[in-house]
C-alpha cells in the first residue's frame, strides 16, 4: 500500500440530542465543558475511539483492518482467551528490543500493514529506544460546541436492589435505588482534523483508507448508540482536498470558510451576537445554519461536501 498524494483537512459537525457525548471523569461523568466559556468539549481520543469501533464493525476480519487498541466490550470470548494465553506466557518480564534498525523497520511495517488504527493514528511501540514510534497521518483536535451547553442532571430510579443488605436498609423507601444521568438537551459540536500526505507515505495509509476514514466519520455514531449517548449524528463532513502533498493553503483559513450560526427566521446570525440571548435555546439542527464559503477558494484546494 502506498500513501496519499494529497493533503486533506476536514471539519465534522455532529449533534447530540438528550445525551452525554463525552463524560468528564474529573467531574463525575458530567459532559465535558470548557470552564471559562461553558462550551461543550469532546476529546480527540473519544472521536478516535468511535472511528476504531466503526472500522472494526465495518471491516471485521478483513486483512489489514484489524484494530490494535480494542474496546473489550465488543470482543468475543475466544479473543479474550487468546489474550490471556499470550499474557501469561509472557510474564517473564524480559525487556526485548529489536536487534537492529532493519528489524525495527520490519516490525513497524508489520503493524502498519495489519492494523488500521496504527496506520491511521500511529502507535508507540516497544520498550527500546526509538525502536518503533509510528506517527500516523491523521490528527484530530478537540471538538467544541458552537454555543455554550447547559447539561441537565436527570435523577432516575431502579426498582431492584443490588444486595440483600441494601434491600433491608430501612432508610430506602420501596427498595428503590436512585441514580443520576447527565444529558445535554441539544448540542452541535464542531471538530477539526488533518490528514498529512507525507506521513501517510510512511505508514502506507492509502486512498482506500482515506475513504474508510471519511465513511467512519460520517457513520461513527450510527453504531455507538447507548443509554448514555442519547441521539448522536454526524450532520456535516466538509473535506478540503489540497492538490499537493504539502497543501495549498493554511488549514485555519480553510476552516474559517465553514461558519456555523443560529437560524433566526432563515437569517444567519453568528453565535454570541447581540440579541441572540432573547432567542429560545437551540434544540434541533434546524436552529442552526451552516454557511460554506465556496467563492475564491485558494488555488489548488477543492471543497468536498461529504455529508
Amino acid at each position, binding site marked *: 500500500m502506498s500513501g496519499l498524494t494529497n493533503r486533506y483537512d476536514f471539519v465534522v459537525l455532529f449533534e447530540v440530542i438528550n445525551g452525554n457525548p463525552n463524560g468528564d471523569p474529573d467531574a463525575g461523568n458530567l459532559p465535558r465543558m470548557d470552564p471559562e466559556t461553558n462550551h461543550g468539549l469532546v476529546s480527540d481520543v473519544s472521536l478516535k475511539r468511535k472511528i476504531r469501533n466503526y472500522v472494526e464493525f465495518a471491516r471485521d476480519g478483513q486483512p489489514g483492518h484489524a484494530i490494535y487498541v480494542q474496546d473489550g466490550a465488543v470482543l468475543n470470548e475466544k479473543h479474550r482467551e487468546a*489474550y490471556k494465553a499470550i499474557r501469561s506466557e*509472557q510474564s517473564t518480564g524480559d525487556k526485548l528490543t529489536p536487534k537492529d534498525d532493519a528489524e525495527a523497520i520490519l516490525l513497524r511495517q*508489520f503493524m502498519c500493514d495489519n492494523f488500521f488504527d496504527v496506520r491511521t493514528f500511529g*502507535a508507540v511501540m*516497544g520498550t527500546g529506544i526509538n525502536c518503533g514510534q509510528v506517527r500516523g497521518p491523521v490528527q484530530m483536535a478537540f471538538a467544541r460546541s458552537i454555543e455554550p451547553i447547559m447539561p441537565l442532571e436527570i435523577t432516575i430510579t431502579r426498582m431492584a436492589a443490588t444486595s440483600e443488605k441494601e434491600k433491608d436498609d430501612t432508610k430506602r423507601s420501596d427498595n428503590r435505588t436512585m441514580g443520576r444521568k447527565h444529558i445535554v438537551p441539544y448540542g452541535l459540536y464542531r471538530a477539526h482534523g488533518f490528514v*498529512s500526505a507525507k506521513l501517510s507515505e510512511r505508514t502506507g495509509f492509502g486512498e482506500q483508507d482515506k475513504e474508510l476514514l471519511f465513511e467512519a466519520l460520517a457513520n461513527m455514531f450510527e453504531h455507538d448508540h447507548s443509554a448514555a449517548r442519547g441521539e448522536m449524528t454526524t450532520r456535516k463532513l466538509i473535506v478540503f482536498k489540497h492538490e499537493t502533498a*504539502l497543501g495549498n493553503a493554511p*488549514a485555519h483559513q480553510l476552516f474559517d470558510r465553514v461558519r456555523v450560526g443560529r437560524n433566526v427566521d432563515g437569517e444567519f446570525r453568528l453565535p454570541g451576537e447581540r440579541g441572540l440571548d432573547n432567542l429560545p435555546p437551540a434544540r434541533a439542527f434546524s436552529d442552526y445554519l451552516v454557511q460554506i464559503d465556496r467563492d475564491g477558494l485558494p488555488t489548488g484546494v477543492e471543497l468536498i461536501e461529504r455529508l
Partner: protein
Amino acid sequence: MPYGIKLHVSGPYACFTRPEMKVERVSYDVMTPSAARGILEAIHWKPAIRWVIDRIHVLEPIRFQSIRRNEVGQKVPVNKVKSALKHRSLDGLRLLCDQDRQQRASTVLTNVAYVIEAHFEMTSRAGDGDNEGKHLDIFNRRAERGQCFHQPCLGTREFDARFRLLDPAEAMPPAITEDRELGYMLWDIDHASAERSAMFFRATMTNGVVNIPQPGAAEICR
C-alpha cells in the same frame, strides 16, 4: 543573525509537558525550545539543516485548564509483534483499552499565542546542493502558503497549531507585559548522544520574551 525567521503560532490549547510531571501531565508556563523546533520541523526540515530557537514571545496571558481522559497504560510490546510476525497470526496482538485503563489528568495551557524567532544552521550532512538560501526559501514559501509536512502542534498532537509567517518588515505583535522566573526548563533532547539525555536551561521571561541560549552555551545544563 542572518536567515532568521519569525513564525506566529496560536491555538485554543497547548501542553508542553514538564518531564518531572508527565504521568499526569502538567504543562510548562511557556512553549519550550524543543516544542518550537518541532513546529518548525513540521513545516520544513532536512538532515542538512538544524533549527536553532532564539527567542519565544508570549502574546497571551498564561492560563491553565485541567482535562482528564481515559488513556491506556501500555505501549505496543515489541516481542508480541515479533511473535505475531513469526507465526503470521494477529491473535493476541491487541490492547484491551478497558482493561488497561488509566485515567490521567492533564493541566494544559489555554488560548495561547507565540512568536517563535529562530534561524537554522547547516549541519555536517549538508551536500553540495545545500545552501542557506535554498532552505530559507523553501521554509518561507511553505509557511506563507500554509504548507506543512504534517500539521504542527502545540506540545501534543490533539492541540493543533495555527501558524503564520511574519514578514521581516512587519512589526512584532505585542507580548504580554509580565516578568516571570520560569525555573529550569527543558531546552532540548540531545538526540546525538546514545542515551538521548535531556538538556535544561534557566528560563526567564522578561516583558513576555524568553531568550533561548544558543547550542553549546554555558547556560545549558545536562
